[in-house]
């Protein structure tokens, strides 16, 4: 029986070794849909982080009350509550961004990262562990979204955060803004992260033995 990871380890694991997008390939729908600009990507990452953290905390708090056959319904209700709060908050204070993200904010309800964390972690662990896990996963998700969006926005429009960074003569790679660019960028970055992780595990292996 393996030793359960400490909350700090859960946090670290979520960032890269168990990155929800690059390593678990979860939550790809928002990853592909809202990463054509850094602002939209960061807003989405923030929204997911809020919902994930709150849902994990609440689920963990009531974990002893959960009935096995009703647990997914309860998860969904908890998540939906926080998604509705996020959605209304964005509509009230960031109206333009709310319009831009459109259906993708309500769709966080069915984001598999959050259900996955409720199921595998929050419904079995203490509040502290669940919170650390949520923060790690949320950081990993944000990292993935920002890295994809940075590549796409830079190549596709020569801008970062809607500020022109490349010279005006830069020919915009329109394909990077379009859906095919999302798939290509994601594929190449997943490959890069796999390569990086493989090299790291090989290094750890050789150090150990």
């Amino acid at each position: 029986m393996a030793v359960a990871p400490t909350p700090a380890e859960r946090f670290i694991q979520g960032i890269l070794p168990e990155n929800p997008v690059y390593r678990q390939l979860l939550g790809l729908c928002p990853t592909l849909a809202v990463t054509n600009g850094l602002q939209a990507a960061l807003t989405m990452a923030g929204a997911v982080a809020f919902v994930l953290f709150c849902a994990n905390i609440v689920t963990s708090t009531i974990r002893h009350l959960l009935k096995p056959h009703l647990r997914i319904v309860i998860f969904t209700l908890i998540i939906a509550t926080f998604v509705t709060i996020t959605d209304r908050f964005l509509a009230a204070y960031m109206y333009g961004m709310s319009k831009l993200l459109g259906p993708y904010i309500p769709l966080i309800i069915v984001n598999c990262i959050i259900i996955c964390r409720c199921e595998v972690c929050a419904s079995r662990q203490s509040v502290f562990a669940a919170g650390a896990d949520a923060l790690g996963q949320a950081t990993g998700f944000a990292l993935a979204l920002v890295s994809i969006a940075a590549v796409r926005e830079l190549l596709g429009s020569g801008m970062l955060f809607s500020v022109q960074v490349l010279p005006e003569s830069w020919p915009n790679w329109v394909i990077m803004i379009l859906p095919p660019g999302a798939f290509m960028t994601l594929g190449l970055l997943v490959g890069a992260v796999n390569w990086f992780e493989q090299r790291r595990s090989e290094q750890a292996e050789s150090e150990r033995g």
Partner: protein
Amino acid sequence: MKAEQTQYTPVIHVSPAPHLSSRDLTTRKMMRDVLLGLSPVVFMALYVFHWYAVKQLMICLLGCLAAEALFMKMRAKSATLNDYSAAVTGIILALSLPGAAPWYIGVIASVVAIGMGKVVFGGIGMNIFNPAMVGRAFVMIAFAGAMGAPGYEQIHATVDVITRATPMDAFKQTGAVASLDSLFWGLTNGSLGETSALACILGGLYLCVRRTASWQIPAGTVVTAAALAGIANLVHPESNWTALHHLLGGSLLFGAFFIATDPVTSPLTPKGKFIFGIGVGFFVMVLRLFSGYPEGVMFAVLLMNGVTPLINHWTIPRPLGAIP
């Protein structure tokens, strides 16, 4: 259990035994044949477009060779430059680009063609889609302005033909019809390699005679395109763009002989090759007649590349006596 592991059943039966392997038919020799077959097309491109063709050919050739060397090094495999496959990709890619396209288009298309079109699938022989067309499709969507119909025209070009609209686009926009003569000899604007029907036929026939290219693919493409163009003519008898214009104009012949015949991305069986050719011809005509694009060879070939495994599956020959 052990017997099961050692027993090996091939997935695709290409043809009944004996399977002869020939030392005369290596990748390298085939690719050299393709280069020879391309030479009339390259010659016409140089004749019609002068240094525009030189520039584009050099960029794509060097781009593809450099990309191949780089990516194979990244995969820690020995570079496969000396089988000429990267050179063939580069030349076909250059010949499919407009002469007036800026330099970065050739560079990006080359890197995408070799990188995303070939190496990510495992290198030569493993790719699903024609690498040159993957590269071209990428830049076509990325730089719609420079690769679309207006990208072919440059008002202050030093070469006369580049100042004119391509025959396909002129017809689509204004209904102007190019003369069959100019389409046959190739003294029109267009992608570097597509203008001269004569050069494509000469080079293509050489490849078919040498059996480097399978004749079923161009035959299927041309016959289907001719038939559909004939039907289109019957439906619209007032149109001056006849079936012959459809055959000689645009990149139908270049695509049929040089692009669709890539042995890696086309079916293995003769019947499958014929189906493949028919599909290419069909999609070319559908795209020409009903889409916003004046030409559709690239997308037609890519679409049919996608269904090649399916065609292979359909046309597996049954060995004598085998139970279906």
